[in-house]
């Protein structure tokens, strides 16, 4: 019996398999630059920060600023709006997670976890609907604010409450809280 039968792997089989594996890995490696060129480059990724002066924003008013090309909603909430947000039971929320970059991932979506302690009238949110990325209405005085007094996304009908939490509609998550800190009582730095 010769050693060159199909059932009996020999040196040629080994060379063929090794060459094919080498070619496959090489092709995959060569492909990577063509894919990776589309990812955000370092200049885009460099974490830009935005400083915002809050002094002109009176209770009940809101401003929109730009951070990393995205709109950020800053609302000076009235005591009624804060109370409405605090009175909601977590069990009633569609998304029970805080979505706050400053807190651990599993944090609950209480109003306290969506704001900074002692500054609870200030709500800072990334103003992008978590459904498909539209900008919800509710920043201007005349805007529709939805059934829960926060924001309303006109694209596909998502309603957010006064803590920016999804209450009704197709959006899967609460509006995100970006990383930010108070530099003074009237100034914050986002990013």
């Amino acid at each position, binding site marked *: 019996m010769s050693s060159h039968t199909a059932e009996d792997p020999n040196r040629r089989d080994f060379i063929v398999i090794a060459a094919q594996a080498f070619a496959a890995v090489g092709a995959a490696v060569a492909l990577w630059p063509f894919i990776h060129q589309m990812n*955000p480059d370092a200049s885009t990724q460099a974490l830009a920060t935005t400083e915002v002066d809050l002094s002109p924003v009176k209770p009940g008013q809101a401003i929109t600023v730009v951070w990393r*090309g995205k709109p950020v909603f800053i609302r000076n909430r009235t005591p009624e709006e804060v109370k409405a947000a605090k009175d909601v039971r977590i069990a009633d929320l569609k998304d029970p997670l805080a979505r706050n970059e400053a807190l651990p991932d599993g944090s609950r979506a209480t109003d306290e976890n969506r704001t900074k302690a002692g500054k609870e009238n200030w709500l800072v949110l990334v103003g992008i609907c978590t459904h498909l990325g*539209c900008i*919800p209405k509710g920043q201007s005085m005349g805007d529709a604010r939805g059934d829960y007094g926060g924001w309303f996304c*006109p694209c596909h009908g998502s309603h957010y409450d006064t803590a920016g939490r999804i209450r009704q509609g*197709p959006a899967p998550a609460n509006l995100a809280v970006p990383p930010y800190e108070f530099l003074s009582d009237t100034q914050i730095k986002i990013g």
Partner: protein
Amino acid sequence: MASHESSFRPASRAGKWLDERLPLPRVMHGQFVDFPTPRNINYLWTTGGLLTFFLGLQIATGVVLAMHYIPSAGEAFSSVEAIRRDVNYGWLLRNIHMVGASFFFLAAYIHIGRGLYYGSYKGPREVLWIIGVVIFLLMMATAFMGYSLPWGQMSFWAVTVITNLFSSIDAVIPGLGTRIVQWLWGGFSVSGTTLTRFYALHYLLPFVIAAAVGLHIWALHVVGQNNPTGIEIKQPSDSVPMAPYAIFKDIFALSVFVLLFAWFVFYLPDYLGHSDNYIEANPLSTPPHIVPEWYFLPYYAILRAIPDKLLGVIAMFSSILLLIFVPWLDTSRVRSAKYRPVYKWFFWMFVISVIALGYLGSKPPEPPYVGWARFFTAYYFLHLLVILPIVGVIESPRPLPRSITEAVLGKEPATQVASAGGGK
């Protein structure tokens, strides 16, 4: 290729010389002059020619528009306005390209509807049909990227909404969806970077479509054309040569269709678009009511009908991808709905549900529209997944004629039949 006698005779010495070296004229003659065409095809069989024409028209106008368009966030909008106002005949070329996209889709929908009605997807035409679905998907991707280029409000927000569809993958693998979306964008939001890559792909994809159309026509010429009876060509009297019979039928239908097209190009160029797209893109303000172009409205209605993000996206994509499986979902042995008394009614109900979804997709996402969109979405899937398999089993089809000739000339295939192939 379907076999038939070649009538190709090179007329000149040069023609003969080439025929012995690269018989391309012989192949073209065989496929587009001698090719046997069922003698009974109706005007719905001219839509393939229409679609080929519109693909060529879009490529021709697109290439010259690309000579004037500037794919950057700062200049895209004004360069499109300059094309319309300043470039010599720019208004005409842009209107043809813009309205051409709509008419391309109109012809494609008629073409797909014809396939569904006459069972053109059934064996041996499954591969032909699947290539068609692939072409349709490529058309949708091309049209979507093309719509982003004018960089108006609807362009920008359509790109935002549609690219964000991929973020729904976050519900399965957290973080992956966001990575994919940022990869598509080249940043953390839709920007000029996104516009430039969409422009590159918008220029590439039509040529991919052209290649796929080549395969589609190749597959068609292997299995032969279906026809209103759904019976194969069995004898010479069942067919006529493609030229002049089918070719001139195509040319006549094309002339009529282009007349309607020209009316839109010259008198109603913006009727099928949205006026908000003449406002330059603003990343900080979403238009109060985002709607896609009319040809995407049924899928948009399906997306919005489902209150869960991931399931909505899955439903929208599967509404098209399911078409791939139609050859196997339809269990009937009879092709043409002409001989299927039950399926015929369900076909028209399916058409009505697609049109209803199109209407509902243009309406805001609120009652009563959302409720109706759910109803028709459910019916859409019910048709493909339940009605199509069951009707094929329970229905008793009407008796089929024995041949195409019998369907056209009646039961006596005597002397007339013999002369029909010769073309009287």
